[in-house]
């Protein structure tokens, strides 16, 4: 009787032990990172993921049409030079290799503008769907960084004078709304940077130059 009771006790402990070992191993192997998010944060995240997936579905559809068009041209014996040229123009504008024009917003920054303020603004414009951005007349591409202290800021060795002008091509309504909403970037930056003034103006037609950087890698090799 005593042996049987000890066996039951051991079995119970072993069961709990096994459960804890598995839980521990699973927690050590890392979760999704979502377990510690509030319901509000998760709702926002789901909305963003939905938007992004819609964009990706649109891209899949566009690429599918493009592939069909090339295959059809092949079947007709065409060289599809027109399609190649259109694709080239598109990719070069998107990359910043060619100049671009279109509707957008002009943002004027006056007062103690810091490199961080410019970087925050560029990041927010990209988040609002900007397709091409220039700061002080310099096209912003991934490695373009504003630097220096207030009063002696520069971008790509081009000095930025007061006021700093930032042009972004994209939906002027979306970008203006994103920047100027209550609690948005403009409000935040003006609240935290004493004396800074930011003015956002929708513009029907803006032009931004091409980058002067060579964006083709010199050391890293393409992996095809």
């Amino acid at each position, binding site marked *: 009787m005593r042996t049987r009771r000890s066996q039951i*006790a*051991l079995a119970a402990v072993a069961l709990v032990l096994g459960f804890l*070992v598995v839980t*521990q191993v699973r*927690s*050590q192997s890392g*979760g999704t990172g*979502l377990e*510690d*998010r509030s*319901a*509000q944060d*998760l709702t926002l*995240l789901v909305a*963003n*993921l939905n938007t*992004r*997936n819609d*964009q*990706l579905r*649109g*891209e*899949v559809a566009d*690429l*599918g049409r493009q*592939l069909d068009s090339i295959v059809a041209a*092949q079947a007709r014996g065409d*060289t*599809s*030079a027109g399609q*190649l040229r259109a*694709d*080239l*123009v598109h*990719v*070069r504008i*998107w*990359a910043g*290799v060619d*100049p671009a*024009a*279109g509707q*957008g917003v002009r943002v004027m920054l006056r007062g103690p503008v810091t490199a*961080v303020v410019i*970087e925050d603004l560029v*990041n*927010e414009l*990209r*988040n609002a769907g900007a397709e091409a951005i220039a700061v002080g007349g310099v096209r*912003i591409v*991934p*490695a373009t960084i504003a630097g220096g202290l207030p009063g002696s800021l520069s971008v790509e060795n081009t000095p930025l004078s007061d006021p700093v002008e930032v042009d972004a091509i994209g*939906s002027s309504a979306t970008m203006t709304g994103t920047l100027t909403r209550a609690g948005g970037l403009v409000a935040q930056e003006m609240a935290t940077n004493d004396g800074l003034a930011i003015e956002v103006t929708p513009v029907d037609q803006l032009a931004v130059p091409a980058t002067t950087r060579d*964006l*083709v*890698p010199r*050391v*890293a*090799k*393409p992996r095809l």
Partner: protein
Amino acid sequence: MSGVATRMRSIPVWEITLFLALVSLGFLIAAQVRSETPRVRYTSQERAPLIETALGLQTQQNALQAQILDLRSRIASAEVATQGSSAIATQLNDALFQARLAAGLTALDGNGLVVQLEDALQVSQAAGNADLLVTGRDVRTTVEELWLAGAEAVAVNDERVVATTSIIDIGGSLLVNSAYVAPPYQVNAVGPADMYTQLAASASWVEFVTSRAGQNGIRIAIAQPSSLIIPAYAGSVSIRYAQPPASAAPSANP
């Protein structure tokens, strides 16, 4: 002394086994409690379906990205196949290859530098202190420092940084190219072999590390793999508003 030995011998084996099992149990319970992630945990019921939805959308996103990369690869192959003997088509294809390289639409392989950013360990004791969490600005600063160190391509948790990339905080999450990335954040770069030397010599990087790791305790680790692959950008490249300026003619030069 012999009394103790006699007493020990009289203890049944099952009691010793049970004792050892309970010690292990105590250890595991303590380890489990300590391994709770540093960010604050919530327990509300409505979160489970939201997490499930987010994970489902993330899975869809991964599948869509794979589809995009596959279609781009097939388009590139088809374009090369159609060039035939046309000199113009050959020239355009070469220009397109260079443009895709410049745009980040091609994966790159090279000397690597990896910077990993993690929340401070003490976050659990000071929940809500934003200084102890890795933020979008921390990741953006790291990306910028890698560009300044000579990087030719950068990715954050495999999301390629391109001309339209934004890195933003949404609640406690980070979105890169509008894709959710989970901590720890790995900022990968390929470029010249002296990238690390350049990074370590950067006054602004030293200031960042001193402030965020030294004072706030976020964990920064660096690795230098001899070979690292930075994936191609797998998002949308559609443009609706930007057009070539009226005076600009299309060029075949990269």
